[in-house]
């Protein structure tokens, strides 16, 4: 019984780590720019596909297989370069109606799906058996691949780094100030344009990293971007829009609940998650950590 609970927990936390990365990017962008960027799913997909290409190139160059993670992280980080480009496009919808913003970012999602198909083709791609290269760890009757633990650790480290950045650095203070009151921050001399670009790029990087890190365990799939948006949406509603802590807790809730549902009532997997979303919307609409609407 204990082994099973630990198994479920670990599988849930692995999924949550990836979800957190993408949701954190979403929250950052929403908090500062007040845009719900559906294209986070596309960044996730782009990170995955680019990750596969980077790793395959890495292997072809004859570099040591054990270091393939570096290629992955490198791909995820470098892709952040598309951030400024997309941010520039989004400028057209900053002050506009939310519905228009959603439509616009969803249009981006669809465009990215085709761009990805154009570049990488329609077939699923994977990094082969590199997933298994770090072996497994067995404890308390539970076997877990070391790679999963690495991803969980990475998620945790990034969460801590984000927290530290937001709380202790000047940039973090500026982000929080801009999120709280944009006009006042501008009046105090904050360069809003520069902040928007930096925040969006950071948000993009979190999404692409998430995609890159998950790919060794699975394979790329054409609809992976859209599928993730559905889950990221649930995470953000549960956690509260704009809250980093909300992203973490929301991701854990969604990830673990999904794992629990699959083990107990598999048919309810999706239903359970959305029951929670509805519950949160009814009982505490701002989410667990969001600010109540004034």
């Amino acid at each position, binding site marked *: 019984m204990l082994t*099973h609970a630990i*198994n*479920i927990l*670990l*599988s*849930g936390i*692995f*999924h949550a780590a990836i979800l957190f990365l993408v949701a954190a990017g979403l929250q950052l962008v929403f908090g500062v720019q007040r845009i719900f960027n559906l294209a986070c799913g596309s960044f996730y997909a782009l990170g995955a596909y680019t990750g596969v290409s980077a790793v395959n190139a890495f292997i072809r160059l004859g570099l040591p297989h054990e270091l393939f993670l570096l290629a992955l992280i490198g791909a995820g980080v470098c892709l952040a370069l598309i951030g400024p480009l997309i941010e520039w496009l989004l400028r057209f919808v900053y002050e506009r109606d939310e519905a228009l913003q959603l439509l616009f970012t969803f249009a981006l999602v669809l465009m990215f799906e085709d761009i990805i*198909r154009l570049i990488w083709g*329609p*077939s*699923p791609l*994977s990094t*082969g*058996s590199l*997933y*298994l290269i770090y072996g*497994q760890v067995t404890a308390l009757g539970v*076997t*877990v*691949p070391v*790679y*999963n633990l690495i991803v969980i650790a990475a998620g945790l480290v990034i969460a801590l780094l984000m927290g530290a950045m937001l709380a202790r650095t000047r940039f973090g203070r500026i982000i929080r100030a801009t999120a709280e009151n944009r006009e006042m921050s501008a009046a105090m001399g904050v360069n809003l344009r520069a902040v928007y670009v930096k925040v969006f790029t950071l948000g993009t990087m979190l999404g692409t990293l998430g995609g890159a890190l*998950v790919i060794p*365990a*699975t*394979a790329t*799939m*054409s*609809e*992976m971007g859209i*599928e993730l948006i559905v889950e990221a949406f649930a995470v953000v509603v549960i956690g509260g829009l704009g809250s980093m802590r909300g992203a973490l807790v929301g991701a854990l809730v969604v990830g673990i609940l*999904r*794992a629990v549902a*699959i*083990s107990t009532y*598999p*048919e309810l997997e999706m239903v359970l998650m959305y029951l929670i979303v509805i519950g949160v919307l009814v009982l505490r609409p701002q989410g667990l950590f969001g600010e109540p609407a004034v």
Partner: protein
Amino acid sequence: MGDDEKGKQAMQTTRRDLLKGVGAMAVGGGLLGMPAVLRAQARTGVPAAPVKIGILAIQSGVGAPVGAAGLRGAEWWTARVNAAGGILGRQVELVVEEESSPKETVERFRKLALQTKVEVISGGISTAVGLALGPVAEELAMLWLSWDATTQKGVEETMPTPQWSFRSVDNEAEAIGGAILTAKHFPEMKTIAGLNNDYSYGRDCWDAFQAALKHFLPDVKPVLDLWPKLGVTDFTAHIAAIQQAKPDLLMTSFWSADTTIFLKQAAAVGLFNTMKGCFTTGGGVHDSLKKSFTPEGLILGYNSMYFHDAQASPLLKAFVRDYRAKYNEYPPYECDHAYFTLEAYKAAVEKAYQAANEWPTQAQVAKALEGMEVESLSGTRSYREDHIMMCNFFQGITTHKNDFDFVTIDPVEVLPTTRITKPPGSKLYDWIRSWT
């Protein structure tokens, strides 16, 4: 058309030079052109224009590799047939459309039938798409040869007596084959678990597998059934549930990229160290099942074509060789579904032509297809009178003893459809119950 002009020029010189010119062109011109045009003109009632064949192939998503395989099989067939002069002298022209959602695929089917006016449509892999296309083919009186896409239940409801639709093998065949092999190789099984995609194919396979297995091992109990959607890429939670349930055997009807992903994630936790596995349809992505994460000793089904068959015909050997050279992969079964439908079509056209003495109508071809038997890549395949494909299925036990980096099977069991699909007019579960 250039050869035509050359012909005219030759005639302007002398009749003798014409004969010399024709000979030179036949040698120098190559595959297409003069010889085919001559042959076409030699047949009465056969138009010279190419015959258009519509192809529906999955091009994206989890089934993309399978769709690509079918398309490649069709293209290989077309190149060979065209090199040999085409069908009754008419060159074959494939018109390829994408198979995606049922609604979109129906639209493309209509376009092929009504706008492009193809003579036959070959394709269809996903069950949902098959269920949608059947009634449309009947409504439009459009000859449709399905590659896969038809399982028992749904088809009984939507296509009871098809006239224009020619169905694939009843898809539960591989589940029944898997049950037969499970009973043969793993008779000590007491508990089973099922991991199948949550749609009709997955559901029907799990039901058929259990029903067939019960015949041989009546005490077997199912302890868990899981239903991930087609396209799920994270099975860690499912694997945890399977480990908790501790079945003696896990059965799965995964047929596309999720097979590989699942095996990889299962290997990461050593799932098959503690249980047996039956992958009824995993052969669809066989060369992605690398030895590094696919253990020996699993039952693996290759559907209706096994590329490494020791009894492979020269045709299959040539196909495997060309496929490998062109795509750096080894062909899966979908290639032969596509090849067979086209080869059967060609044979039916030729047969109907004998009777009609002109290029046959779709109705005449449909009649000729019933009972048609041809030599396909995997061996002899045929259409039964009730429009269902008959062939051999290949399943076996995975082994690492080969020169590839992926698994193959040894021993190979050849299961004819007469053994694993219900006879005409009978109902599946009644038929299974009637086994001796």
